């Protein structure tokens, strides 16, 4: 990682960051909920976003693949660069951005009208793409999402017949099938048992050999296990959310610069 910690608490990185958010501000209607967030995500890195509930983590990652603009009343200032191209520049088609920057939502949302297999392949169908071997793709994606063993005998069952945690893993498999360059994961393990969580964490590590991953998590151990760098978000009372500290995961957890970070990662706060 090319992280150099400067005097400020925000690490600065060199030019070849894969994805970079600059001075992001977010409003919902007139309410300012996110203030001046600048983060960069180097190629093939894993970044954890941590912070108390309601501080704007989900809101922030939705600005990274242009899902934010779908919320009625949403407002945005700042820019996001993907391979040094501004994804909010005039004329950029959000569809192409979302194909390159995949996303797993906080709540599982499989397509109820499709089968398990259909869900995994849904991304390809929706974006008009093909694969040579569907079955192989389905198996590998479900495997990496640690779901294959549980569903291999009922791939044609409706997705709604899965348990909540299984549905979440199906959603992970669905995003993996598109092989995005960047994968945004919003608390992917919050509904999962320890075994599946461990498997997903392994998958994230594997993915980071050819994908840039951004993961929101409330689990400090998970952040430390999977991520290279961590950003700590905080929204103090009556204020918009912002990044208190951003740096390499090791530094942020072992010797945080900000007392608020220290309190939070040690569970004394939030």
């Amino acid at each position, binding site marked *: 990682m090319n992280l150099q910690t400067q005097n400020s608490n925000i690490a600065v990185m060199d030019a070849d960051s894969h994805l970079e958010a600059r001075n992001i501000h977010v409003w919902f209607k007139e309410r300012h909920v996110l203030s001046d967030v600048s983060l960069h995500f180097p190629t093939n890195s894993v970044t954890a976003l941590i912070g108390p509930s309601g501080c704007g983590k989900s809101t922030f990652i939705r600005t990274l693949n242009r899902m934010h603009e779908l919320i009625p009343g949403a407002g945005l200032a700042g820019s996001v660069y993907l391979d040094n191209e501004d994804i909010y520049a005039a004329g950029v088609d959000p569809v192409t951005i979302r194909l390159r920057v995949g996303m797993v939502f906080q709540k599982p949302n499989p397509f109820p009208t499709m*089968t398990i297999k259909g869900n995994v392949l*849904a*991304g390809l169908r*929706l*974006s008009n793409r093909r694969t040579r071997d569907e079955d192989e793709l389905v198996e590998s994606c479900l495997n990496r999402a640690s779901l294959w063993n549980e569903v291999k005998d009922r791939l044609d069952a409706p997705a709604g017949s899965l348990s909540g945690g299984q549905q979440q893993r199906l959603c992970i498999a669905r995003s993996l099938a598109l092989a995005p360059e960047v994968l945004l994961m919003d608390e992917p393990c919050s509904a999962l048992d320890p075994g599946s969580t461990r498997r997903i964490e392994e998958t994230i590590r594997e993915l980071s050999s050819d994908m840039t991953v951004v993961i929101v998590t409330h689990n400090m151990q998970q952040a430390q296990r999977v991520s290279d760098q961590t950003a700590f978000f905080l929204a103090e009372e009556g204020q918009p959310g912002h990044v208190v500290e951003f740096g390499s995961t090791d530094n942020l957890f072992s010797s945080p610069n900000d007392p608020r970070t220290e309190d939070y990662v040690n569970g004394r706060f939030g």
Partner: protein
Amino acid sequence: MTTLELLPRPKDAAPWRNRSKSLLTKIALASVLPVVLAIAIGKAFGIPGPITLLLVFLPLQLLASGLAALSTRGKRGVADSQLNVAVLFATTFVAIMLGSVLFSVVSFGLNAISPHFAYQNNVYVTSTTSLEYGGAGHALLGTVLVVGLAALIAVPVGIAVAVYLTETRGRFRGPVRFFAQSMSGLPSIVAGLFIFAVFVSTGISRPAGWLASSALVLLMLPTVIRMSEEVLKLVPGDLRSAALALGAPQRKAFFLVIMPAAKTGLVTAILLGIARIVGETAPLLLTMRVNPNTNVNVFSGDMSTLPTYIFAFLTAGFDTGRARSWAAAFLLLAVVGLIFGTARAISAKSIKK
């Protein structure tokens, strides 16, 4: 390690159905006594049936159920029982109304109908002609054609408007929704008059099937739009987000994710739209002329439909004529049943791979 045996499900795996003897007796008493008492009182004082039902039976039933509930479940049960009785009573009331309409159509209709009635036409037939001759086949065909053409236009347009209202952020959603809503209050005869004024009075066209279809479109559109809109609004936003986050263009997200999720609801919307217009008579009387002969061309010539056929024979006022009306009404009911049945069967087809 022991392996667990897979047990077959026993017949009575529903312990919540078990009721105690005393409860069952009370339920039996509370449901039989009021009926018996109400009949006795009604007979004794010579009160007409409907009034007995409403003013004698209902209060008695409320009282009996209330007492039964009080003795088994205490005070909390009373309110519950009262509401139960009220809801059941209202349901039964409506069911009896609908049932009696259905029953008269079926019984009178079956009396008058014969196989040839469904395909022969009305040439040389008058109100006094024996039922052995002629039929409403031409009118059945007319209804199918006129309503079919109307649905062909109103369904895609209506659903498209609903999609505009729910899936886009178009600037005219407010006015469009308002317009559709006001249109649903349009009296059907006004729709007929409007088409008459625009096409017939101006000499653009002689009365014809397609004019009737146009009038029906005006009546069907608001129903289809409103219903489809409600149905599409029920599709969880999560599904939309999921589809779009997978890089789907909006069009694909709609056809592959949102529409399948709303499928049964959309079919209901279409069916309600058809139900709205299939029995309409007034606009048809204004926009097309009856024709005893069969006409398959909706774009020119006179054409009968089942509602106008029924209307004509009812107003003529002879017994055989009235019988023909019932037979045609039965035919109309059968057609509607057939359409609804097939639509339901199609929409119930299971999920896609």
